[in-house]
């Protein structure tokens, strides 16, 4: 999945350095092999993790996978289409609420709940996106934040439906669906379920990014006027990108509810929308796997820093500022650049 650096190494912040890198394709065959190897090793480690790592890390890994999917879906809008959304938590949170409510009221099987979460998030993304993609990036950033907070305040204040600030808790996942007997209450079993679903979703998202659809999105990021001149309906493509991203965020949110055992308004707050932004910047917005790397860094940093200080958000803000100012290509981008420069 890493082998596309030839097409995706032109993040917005570093366009100036592009020509310097253009002639250097000789080293990328070895680099691609190295990347495939690294991905395969990571995958094997992820599969065997519950048997080798301490109990605590099963929870960490589950969170990394779910938030990684959230960040990857965010990056479809940000890294690929070039629009910075500050309201992505709306779809994540709504997915969580959908699963929590369906489990609480009807005890649906998990797969059916996840499907419902995706549908609800898709519809919401279509509606919010319809308003947000009409104008330029600045408007988009403001409008996504505003609409995201609208969803938050609805969940926060509509007590009769969403149970207000207490959120929806006290539900149990009884069955998986498809007639399979899966012990979802066991954290390591749930971890494997999350692993499989996230891998499938990530593969699908990757195919979308590599398709001609994804190519047009990247063209829109680089030059929307020129794409519009070519006869492409830029607004429709932006809306499609936003909606697809919302659908995947809804899936991630749906996986989060049984993991946290609660769906609360915090999942919809703008500080939750900040997380995929931070993860993507940490990992690198120019790479498909960047958000996943960023999610791993984010969750590990969070676990480590919150054990020392309360001011997690302060540290996060400082890290974000430094990454934006000096390491705009993220950890993955910086490492890959370093490798390519050595070649």
């Amino acid at each position, binding site marked *: 999945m890493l082998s596309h650096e030839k097409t995706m190494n032109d993040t*917005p*912040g570093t366009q100036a350095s592009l020509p310097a890198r253009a002639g250097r394709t000789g080293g990328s065959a070895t680099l691609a092999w190295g990347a495939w190897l690294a991905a395969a090793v990571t995958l094997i480690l992820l599969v065997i993790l519950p048997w080798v790592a301490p109990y605590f890390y099963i929870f960490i890994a589950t969170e990394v996978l779910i938030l990684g999917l959230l960040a990857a879906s965010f990056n479809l809008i*940000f890294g690929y289409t*070039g629009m*910075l959304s*500050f309201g992505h938590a709306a779809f994540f949170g709504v997915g969580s609420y959908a699963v929590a409510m369906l489990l609480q009221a009807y005890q649906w099987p998990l797969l059916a709940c996840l499907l419902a979460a995706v549908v609800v998030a898709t519809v919401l993304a279509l509606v919010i996106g319809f*308003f947000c993609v*009409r*104008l*330029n*990036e*600045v*408007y988009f*950033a*403001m*409008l996504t*934040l*505003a*609409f995201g*907070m*609208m969803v938050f*305040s*609805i969940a926060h*204040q509509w007590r009769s439906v969403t149970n207000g600030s207490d959120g929806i808790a006290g539900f149990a996942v009884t069955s998986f669906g498809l007639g399979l007997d899966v012990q979802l209450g066991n954290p390591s079993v749930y971890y494997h379920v999350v692993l499989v679903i996230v891998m499938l979703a990530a593969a699908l998202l990757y195919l979308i990014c590599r398709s001609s659809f994804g190519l047009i999105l990247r063209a829109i990021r680089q030059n*929307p*006027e020129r794409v*519009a001149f070519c006869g492409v309906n*830029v*607004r429709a493509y932006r809306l499609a990108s936003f909606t697809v991203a919302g659908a995947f965020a809804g899936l991630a949110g749906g996986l989060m509810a049984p993991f946290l055992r609660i769906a609360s308004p915090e999942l919809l707050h*703008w*500080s939750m929308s*900040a997380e995929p*932004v931070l993860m993507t*910047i940490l990992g690198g917005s120019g790479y498909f796997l960047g958000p996943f790397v960023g999610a791993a860094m984010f969750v590990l940093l969070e676990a480590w820093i919150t054990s020392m200080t*309360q*001011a*997690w*958000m*302060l540290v*996060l*803000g*400082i890290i*974000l*500022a430094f990454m*934006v*100012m*000096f390491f*705009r290509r993220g950890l993955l981008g910086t490492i890959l650049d370093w490798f390519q420069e050595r070649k």
Partner: protein
Amino acid sequence: MGSLGLALLNSLDIGLLLFIIAVGLNIVFGVLNVINFAHGALYMLGAYLAFSCINGLGMPFWATLLIAPLGVAVLAVLVDRLMLRFVYQREVTDSLLLTFALLLILNESVRMVWGTGIHVVEPPELLRGTVTLPGGIRYPVYSLFVIFAGAVVLFGLWFLFNKTRAGKIMRAAALDRDMAQVLCINTRLVITGVFAFGAWLAALGGVVAAPMRAIDPGMGDKIIIESFIVVVIGGLGSFPGALLGAIVLGLIHGLGGRFLPEINLMLPFVGMAIVLLLKPHGLLGRRASL
């Protein structure tokens, strides 16, 4: 009739306070082409500084009104020189990200310094109690002061932009920064100055709001969303737009709270959505759509 009059006065009160804050956002956008996501946090910082000056140091309200916004403006100069100057030459997304980082930093810093509880500031002696207006409406003096303060800022800004050299330089920089530079205008200084001025306005709004709003760590988030709605309704970068948007949102709050309390929360967003559908660049916005 009395009830409608009261609702209209409330609308004006809410609207003009929003104007003080949103116009700062708009001025910064007009010159720097940056939406300052930390604008609400700067407003909050102004209110907290007012709390510390008045309740902690025992300073009079009027002195606080001068000092607290200046303190925030000095902070804004530092932010501009230490953070934002790295990204002015890059795409607009990067400056959005950086002001967002600033929002996280400021929000958490406020929480660390002042805690998560709610703080209250008393209005000064002169502005306490209520007065009876013609028509038999009893109205708090402080709310009348807020309307007065909004009018002073409105007139002051109009004077600044139309009658003074500094204002004309700002408008020139907003219109065409390169051309302004060619004409021997120190645009770097203008950029820093405008960013600090926007922060000053946000903090001024915070001090004015302090005696009538609860001071808590969530107040900045609320106001930034409101300010966004104001500039989207009025038109991004437009000075009269900020006023019109603020008045419209004030009316939505003032009248909506009175006559449609059950869907009050949704009304600002509905208003924003309608404006976006009919006039995508706001009621007084300039540029054509893509």
